[in-house]
């Protein structure tokens, strides 16, 4: 059913009483967001939408409909970014129905057209919900990425020896980030030894082992010797029973053991002062 276009009579009436309708619409929207947006700003948002809507109601050509949708999407995204709920956002659109309905008290002949108009507004309001959720998901994804970045430090244990203490689960996204940071640090410090400590990794299954092996493989391509430390007794049992092979990668129970190994391989010794 075509709910856009073909509403020329309603559009003409709405154009004639533009100020009255948009003022009332603004009023309702400001109340709906409980004053968190200034009346001036609301007016600005709605004036634009009103004009675009009237155009579409007369003739729903692709260009006009596209522009209306784009303007609504922008409204929705802005609301999402500023922490408004999806309902508050949709209400901004639905409120126009109330404003127009009040107007129709004086124009009984337009009541039949109101149904079509109402459906148009419903469709637009629902659209804001969808745009809203897409925008929120994007924000959450960005925040997760920021958190991931913070939780992956690479530390310098000694000259030429760096460590990556891992805490939490190791999935492929995290592994990518770890590889990038580890390799960048190798280049920046010229380190030739890296220790990946997995004390804080709760479970080591074949997938996690793959991620570790990949990381070691990448570090080796930059000339670094790697060791994996922090293998707890239960983890050791799981690794063996799963048949995971670490090949020629040194594995140690503690970070301290791995550091001692790296020092030895660097030709250094720790002795009494």
């Amino acid at each position: 059913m075509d709910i856009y276009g073909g509403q020329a009579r309603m559009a003409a009436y709405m154009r004639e009483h533009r100020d009255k309708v948009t003022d009332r619409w603004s009023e309702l929207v400001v109340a709906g967001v409980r004053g968190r947006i200034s009346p001036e700003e609301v007016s600005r948002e709605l004036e634009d939408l009103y004009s675009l809507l009237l155009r579409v109601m007369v003739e729903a050509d692709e260009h006009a409909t596209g522009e209306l949708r784009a303007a609504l999407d922008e409204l929705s995204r802005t609301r999402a970014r500023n922490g408004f709920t999806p309902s508050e956002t949709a209400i901004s659109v639905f409120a126009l129905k109330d404003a127009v309905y009040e107007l129709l008290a004086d124009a009984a002949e337009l009541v039949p057209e109101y149904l079509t108009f109402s459906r148009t507004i419903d469709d637009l309001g629902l659209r804001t919900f969808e745009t809203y959720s897409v925008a929120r998901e994007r924000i959450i994804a960005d925040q997760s990425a920021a958190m991931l970045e913070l939780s992956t430090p690479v530390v310098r244990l000694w000259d030429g020896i760096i460590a990556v203490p891992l805490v939490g689960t190791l999935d492929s996204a995290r592994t990518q980030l770890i590889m990038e940071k580890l390799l960048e640090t190798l280049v920046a410090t010229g380190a030739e030894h890296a220790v990946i400590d997995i004390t804080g990794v709760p479970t080591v299954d074949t997938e996690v082992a793959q991620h570790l092996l990949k990381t070691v493989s990448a570090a080796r391509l930059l000339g670094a010797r790697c060791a994996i430390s922090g293998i707890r007794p239960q983890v050791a049992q799981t690794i063996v029973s799963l048949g995971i092979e670490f090949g020629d990668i040194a594995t140690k129970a503690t970070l301290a053991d791995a550091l001692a190994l790296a020092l030895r391989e660097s030709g250094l010794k720790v002795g009494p002062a």
Partner: protein
Amino acid sequence: MDELPIQSGDDVVRVRQQVRIVAADCGLSLVDQTKLVTAASELARNTLVHGGGGRARVEVVKSGNGRSGVKIGFTDSGAGIPDLDLALTDGWSSGNGLGLGLSGARRLVDEFELASEPGAGTSVVVIKWSR
């Protein structure tokens, strides 16, 4: 959208360079750019060496949720691949034993589509999205 011929070793280099430019413009991270260009290099080489030459099509695409990505299509009218499943297993090779690099290229991209008919050529389409 760019269409590039793949008829020589120089063409493979040109495909790499063009993909690099488009990927950078699209906002892909350095690592993602490198992965995509490397995958493109593998597939372009396949087109040349195993497909008898063909072409590559590079374009920017948009996903449902507003992300942009780079889509590359490789087509040739060569002998085709008789067993697609086998071709996609690691280490499979045909002809001169150098491997088709298809499974490797697949790991480097987000979306991978392979169509091939013996006698009717091969088409590979890959997409890498920006994050």
